């Protein structure tokens, strides 16, 4: 019979602040709770969703999940209260983490919107993860095997020595992922808006790649077989008939006396490039079909599931693992 457990733990204590007091009581800043999965014989799932603070998840040899919360006492770093608060002591609030376990899914969340604290977890190595933070500086995951979904808004994401499949997005931070082993036939996706995307895959990885950066470069040491964009079916663009040819480009201006012949050659090459570009922007059904998709499509080691690497402001690094 499957056992269903339900554990709720409020992590955090109320304490007085003041630099001297905090230093003396530094050990009590850390709150720790151990929560078992209801069925430890199969991989559990851990969902962590916090607004403030980073998340660190490391693999352990145990079967339980150990949640450690470092209460960030925002008042530690502040000056003494001034103005209306002058002469008063500042009280800081606990992290207010709630831990719930049901059907092998553990959910850890924080309702606090300020005074962020970091959350550290030790979980069994084979665990599925779903992690998200808004204002944490970093989400770090080490040596976990499973389905890993990580989302951050204002922080970076680092997955180190993980196995399985990952779907990762940071809006304003870097995404750095090192995968040791992949689950076969599972697509993956690594994206950022304002950060680099740096992914290391096992050397023998078979994949179909889609890589795109709007303001950056794509760099790799894999032997990528570049391919055309996958064709869409006729329902996508009901283009009827053959596209009319693009209007001719204006003639090249006459060379000034004594001009370099190489300059003319350069102009001719530029003209050919422009013509090719116009050809790409083919006309169909009375209107211009503009090929906006500047993604690089390619395969590695013969192709496989689809992996997308994408950023808007940043570089893409695709590396071979050791």
């Amino acid at each position, binding site marked *: 019979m*499957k056992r269903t457990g339900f554990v709720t733990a409020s992590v955090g204590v109320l304490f007085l602040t003041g630099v001297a007091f905090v230093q003396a009581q530094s050990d009590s800043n850390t709150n720790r709770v151990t929560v078992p999965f209801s069925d430890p014989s199969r991989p559990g799932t851990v969902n962590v969703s916090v607004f403030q603070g980073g998340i660190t998840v490391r693999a352990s040899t145990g079967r339980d999940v150990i949640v450690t919360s470092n209460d960030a006492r925002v008042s530690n770093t502040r000056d003494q209260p001034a103005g209306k608060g002058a002469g008063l002591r500042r009280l800081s609030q606990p992290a207010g983490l709630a831990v719930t376990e049901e059907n092998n899914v553990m959910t850890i969340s924080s309702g606090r919107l300020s005074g962020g604290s970091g959350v550290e977890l030790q979980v069994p190595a084979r665990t599925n993860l779903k992690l998200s933070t808004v204002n944490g500086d970093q989400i770090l995951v080490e040596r976990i095997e499973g*389905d890993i979904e990580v989302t951050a808004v204002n922080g970076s994401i680092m997955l180190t020595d993980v196995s399985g499949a*990952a779907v990762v997005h940071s809006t304003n931070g870097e995404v750095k992922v090192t995968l040791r082993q992949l*689950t076969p036939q599972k697509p993956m996706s*690594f994206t950022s*808006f304002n950060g680099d995307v740096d992914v290391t895959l096992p050397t023998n990885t078979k994949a179909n790649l889609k890589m795109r950066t709007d303001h950056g470069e794509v760099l790799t040491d894999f032997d990528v077989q570049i391919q055309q964009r996958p064709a*869409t079916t006729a329902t996508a663009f009901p283009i009827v008939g053959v596209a009319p040819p693009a209007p001719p480009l204006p003639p090249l201006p006459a060379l000034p006396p004594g001009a370099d012949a190489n300059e003319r050659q350069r102009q001719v090459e530029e003209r050919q490039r422009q013509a090719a570009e116009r050809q790409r922007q083919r006309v169909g059904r009375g209107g211009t079909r503009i090929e906006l998709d500047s993604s690089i499509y390619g395969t590695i080691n013969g192709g496989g599931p689809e992996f997308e690497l994408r950023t808007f402001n940043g570089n893409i690094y695709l590396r071979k693992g050791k």
Partner: protein
Amino acid sequence: MTHYTEDELILYHYGEAPRRDRIEEHLQACAPCATAYRDIARTLALVGDLEVPERDERYGLEMWQRIRHDLPPQDVPWFTGLMAWHRFALAGAAAMLLLASFVAGLYWPRPGAASQDAQQASNLNDLRGELHQMREMLTLSLMQQQSATERLRGVSGSAQIDQPGNQIVGALLDTLMHDSNVNVRLACIDALRRFSGQDQVRRGTIQALGESSFPLVQIALIDYMVETKDKGAADALRRLSEDSMVNEAVRGRAVWGLQQLQL
């Protein structure tokens, strides 16, 4: 040439078919069967890692309680007593019937080779239809999973379905608008590209552009609008370009989109 059935090919896929070497030879020689096998293998690959949900030990009892009131009352048939008295006579009659069927089979005219081929072609078509349906159901099921990687798998699997039905297109639009994961939404935009001629897709993508708050998704949608020359997106693009709460790069892209569409 005798073709293999769907069941035999599925057993072959899982390495459980008898005379495996003969099937392998046949697949190399027979293009229709090889195509059917590739379809089966691709479909079965989609379900490879799905976890089978565990049943509670009370499942049987609960199911019985749920259906027992809908079952018709069972009366004892009037011939129950008769059966008891004439069991041996009935067994003899059944044996005679079996023998008669066997003899009739020996003299029954056999269908010609042409009709056999037509029958096999029809079977293959049926098989393809079933596979198509199965693949659609699997794709829809994957898009409902808790795991983002599974949902991504469903979205990318939809690209492998020829002429998918409205359910698939609807599920892609729903995922584009409501999925909690940015990357899954991005994959949906790619998957929807081949349906951009459909009205519901045009309306859905415009609605998604107005509702999405993820900059990467917003930019991908603006590019999609321009690429598909969707002039109906003008209002949504204008609103985006004038909204001070929207990311600056997205606003710039919206202005560019309006220019590209010459609106």
